[in-house]
């Protein structure tokens, strides 16, 4: 399960070892003996179903939850051994953004962003400069004097992000930072997080329910279930070779590249040829030669997208050669890609056309 890319020898900026956290006097094991290293510059996704322990695990990092056992080291400082005062210091170096933004409604946008600077006792003038810079960076310079209730969801989250970035923390924790946003706004916020990682070198730990967020933003991912990390590693590797059923379900929901049973049935009805699902391999062979198929063929379903900037996904092809030709084509394809054979389509159906409504 331990992928070499994650348990790197390098320089983990966050290192959790043997973390256990229970609630209700031990009745609930929210996090169960979890170890995790996050390297400098990672965008580490933590994914899992509700109640898996994601929030608890991440909140242990900045000591919003104190673990029952285990050790947390962030940027060389032992969080689990820190006193109240030191904890506050450490927390100032860890930015956090929240699902429901948690902005201070009584303060203007500028004052929200300036709050952590005030805590860090920045002089007023430097504070104003930094706030202006941040407002600019997240693209809401014109909203400085507004109050949070006057902003849209996406704008609110931008304020949340700017506030979390104010003290230039090395680490940013995001607990479902986009779950309260609509799809377009989600994309904007994810783009912003990507910029923060790329341009500012901030390490990001990001909790999400959505594999497509992982796919678009993260380089590593940990899948949690029942308080444990059941799968982890580089996103491309995990997507390409999921081992745990939970991981598979998440991938299916995110990519929608493989036809579901219902879709397969419909495809069968509308396509008479042989249907096959061709998946790109993670081994560097990022594609296969379409012209080498040797039989008439068309793409009827599927998606190829970028994961960590490499093509990833699968296509469903209809092969319209003779049975033997199709079999030969499949053999050839298998040299480049994984092929799942769905068999022949329903001959009764028309070759193309709409299944009536």
């Amino acid at each position: 399960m331990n992928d070499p890319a994650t348990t790197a020898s390098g320089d983990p900026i966050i290192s959790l070892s043997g973390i256990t956290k229970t609630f209700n006097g031990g009745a609930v094991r929210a996090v169960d003996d979890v170890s995790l290293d996050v390297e400098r510059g990672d965008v580490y996704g933590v994914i899992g179903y509700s109640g898996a322990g994601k929030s608890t695990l991440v909140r242990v990092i900045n000591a919003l939850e104190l673990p029952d056992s285990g050790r947390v080291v962030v940027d060389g400082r032992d969080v689990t051994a820190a006193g109240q005062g030191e904890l506050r210091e450490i927390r100032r170096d860890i930015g956090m953004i929240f699902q429901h933004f948690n902005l201070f409604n009584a303060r203007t946008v500028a004052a929200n962003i300036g709050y952590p600077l005030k805590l860090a006792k920045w002089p007023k003038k430097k504070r104003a400069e930094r706030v202006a810079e941040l407002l600019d960076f997240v693209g809401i310079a014109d909203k400085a004097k507004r109050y949070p209730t006057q902003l849209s969801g996406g704008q609110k989250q931008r304020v949340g992000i700017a506030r979390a970035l104010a003290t230039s923390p090395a680490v940013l924790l995001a607990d479902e930072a986009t779950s309260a946003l609509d799809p377009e706004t989600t994309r904007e916020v994810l783009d912003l997080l990507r910029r923060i990682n790329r341009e500012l070198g901030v390490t990001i730990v990001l909790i999400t329910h959505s594999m497509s967020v992982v796919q678009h933003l993260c380089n590593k991912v940990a899948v949690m279930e029942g308080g444990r990390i059941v799968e982890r590693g580089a996103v491309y590797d995990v997507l390409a070779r999921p081992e745990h059923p939970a991981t598979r379900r998440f991938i299916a929901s995110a990519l929608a590249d493989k036809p579901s049973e219902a879709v397969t049935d419909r495809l069968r009805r509308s396509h008479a040829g042989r249907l096959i699902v061709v998946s790109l391999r993670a081994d560097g062979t990022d594609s296969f030669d379409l012209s080498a198929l040797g039989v008439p063929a068309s793409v009827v379903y599927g998606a190829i997208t970028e994961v960590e900037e490499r093509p990833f996904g699968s296509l469903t092809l209809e092969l319209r050669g003779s049975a033997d030709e199709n079999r030969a084509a499949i053999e050839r394809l298998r040299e480049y890609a994984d092929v799942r054979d769905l068999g022949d389509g329903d001959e009764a159906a028309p070759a193309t056309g709409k299944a009536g409504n």
Partner: protein
Amino acid sequence: MLPMVNQWDSDRYTPKLIEAVQETLQMVSLTLLIGGLLGLALGVIVFATRKGGIFANRPVNALVNVLINFIRPIPFIIFLAAIRPLTQAVMGTGLGTEAMIFPMTIVCTVATARIVEQNLVATDPGVIEAGIAMGASRLHVLMRVVVPEALGPLVLGYAFLFVGVVDMSAMAGIIGGGGLGAFAIQWGYQRYNDLVTWVAVGIIIVMVQVVQFIGNAIARKLLRR
């Protein structure tokens, strides 16, 4: 039953009325200022020490709650007498308008505490978390984050309390204090002079309306929108 000698003896009553207005303003504003602040502190303590609170502390919470629940139900006239020795020790006098401020402040404090608690409980716990995560101390979060967040409804709460404090101040006459309430009772009610009664009560009503209006306006502004 129409009164016959109900008249406004201006030489006598007008200066008294002006003084009474001043006394009421003095009593009420000092009480609201001190009791409002102490009540804010007490309310913050009840809020912070409750189960799951930021300074969760069962014994302290129980103590403060019992204290509040103990003082609030005592009829004010009895409380006024009971606390008199303490009033005298603290205020240097057990008589007059100044002496009223002490018991009024205590009652105002516990009533304010309840109202503050209720409003703080209604604030979004997310902002507390955000403050802590940013490395603010718990006290800082309480006073500089939670309280400002609740300021809008708090102002409405204080406006509501204003009526209660004005009501209490009407008892000032009992210990030789002044103010509009005492004026209405002593020169109107006790002497069966309805005109005097209603002039004084009328001013109280106007005062309350003005404060409520201002409170509403401030709250609306604080609630932003």
